[in-house]
């Protein structure tokens, strides 16, 4: 059985349906990427997984148990954590306080300190800036903080919404290397990215979304060489 199963998921904003019945499966230990143009419904999918948005139809199952009825703060207790689009770090709080809130649901203080050490190893910049207000960090540093903050909850499934948004190419590489490292520690990753090529090189499998529907799904290597994907998302032949 898959770790996470999304079945026939419909989501509405008011009267407008944004997701028209999507199905996704994620296995333990995988990196799965969701690709799609602006407005395809990628962020909506992640926000529904996190319980922030309630589906109008369909279900989300974690190891077979329904997840879609839980309020958002309880989803985090199931160790499913999101680093949202646009980072959304708490600008008026220090870096350290942001990380502490990431561990809000954590029960084991020892584990939290181990996580903190690990995050500081992944992003030494955060350790240097730990007393600084998050609002004064650079965009890249805020992205590191957003990912670090999500990791503080000790997730088994990490949802990343456009972690490379607005970052310099060299930082994009750092962030993606870090995602691989995180995954190698056993964390399952669902990655939403505009940067399709990099995402497919990192991921095991991928889904392609178009206006609220899944239109393709395959192993990442297969998607990378799929002519339709190359044309639509990889900017033609390279």
């Amino acid at each position, binding site marked *: 059985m898959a770790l996470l199963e999304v079945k026939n998921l419909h989501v509405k904003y008011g009267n407008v349906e944004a997701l028209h019945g999507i199905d996704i499966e994620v296995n333990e230990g995988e990196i799965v990427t969701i690709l799609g143009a602006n407005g395809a419904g990628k962020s909506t999918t992640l926000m529904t997984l*996190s*319980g*922030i948005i309630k589906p109008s139809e369909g279900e989300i199952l974690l190891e077979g148990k329904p997840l879609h009825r839980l*309020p*958002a*703060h*309880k989803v*985090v*207790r199931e160790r499913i*954590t*999101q680093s*949202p689009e646009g980072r*959304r*770090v*708490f*600008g*008026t*709080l220090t870096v350290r*306080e942001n990380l*502490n*809130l*990431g561990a*809000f*649901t954590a029960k084991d203080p020892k584990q939290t300190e181990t996580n903190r050490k690990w995050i500081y190893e992944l992003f030494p910049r955060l350790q240097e800036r730990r007393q600084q*207000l998050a*609002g*004064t*960090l650079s*965009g890249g540093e*805020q992205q590191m903080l957003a990912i670090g*903050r999500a990791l503080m*909850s000790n997730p088994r499934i990490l949802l990343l919404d456009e972690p490379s948004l607005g970052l310099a190419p060299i930082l994009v590489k750092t962030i993606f290397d870090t995602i691989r490292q995180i995954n190698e520690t056993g964390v399952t990753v669902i990655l939403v990215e505009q940067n399709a090529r990099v995402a497919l090189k990192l991921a095991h499998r991928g889904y392609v979304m178009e206006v609220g529907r899944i239109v393709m799904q395959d192993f990442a290597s297969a998607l990378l060489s799929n002519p339709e994907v190359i044309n639509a998302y990889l900017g033609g032949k390279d």
Partner: protein
Amino acid sequence: MEQFFQQLTNGLAVGGIYALIALGYTMVYGVLKLINFAHGDLFTIGSYLGLTLLTSMALTDKLGPFFGILLLAVMVMILVGIVGILLDQVAYRPLRESPRLSAVVSALGASIFFQNTIMLIYGASFHVYPQNILPRMVVNVFGLHIPMIRILVLLASVVMMLALYTFIQKTTIGTAIRAAAEDQGAAKLMGIDVNGVIMIVFFIGPALGGAAGLMVGLYYGQVNFTMGWIYGLKAFTAAILGGIGNIPGAMVGGILLGVIEALGAAYISIAWKDAIAFLVLILILIVRPTGLLGERVAEKI
């Protein structure tokens, strides 16, 4: 000089009371972006509850003035805090997803409801707090003769503000409250129960307001069912002065407004006492609408 210092200390004591009430406005505004117009009436409820408990339980006879008042304050704060939570559940929570104006109308309705309830229970006339509960001592501070009660009021408000500040700044729950005030969605993604945070805020704010009501009763010796209106307006001014949503701002704004008002009343005209507060409000809205401590950190996009 004597008059100046008398007015200054009086202003500080009254300012402390304004600050306690202002904290309720600012904390609720922080998490809900809603002005709780019924907050002034929670303050009134505090002063009447204080009066009832004081006279019916004779706490100060049994425990002595200090511990008697302390226990009284704790009871008043808990009760008014509970009323605060109920107010939110009944009047505001059903309207969370509605346009802002609906909640404002609901707040005004709640205010009228509270005022009338108090009037129906206690009547419309002034009520007098029992005298001589606190020893009518006058303390000599560097040659200045200051009533004991004034010092106690100031001390009590400073202690409560320090406790609140420590709670908000140093504890995990306090950090969660600040986070929810900044971005509720992101707070939920951290696993914070935002409804729980709102409940805590609707307990603490009214509890402080209730304590302020008790302090006014003890300081001035009389209470009336409409007094929440004017105190509420002054405290609201103080919250705006400090920057609404900003907790240290409400403290600074309250103290400052109390002092400005006391000195203004003494040196300009006592008749202008209330007008001064609103002049301050108008000035701050024109010159610095974000308040003194508002917008300390610009958010990055």
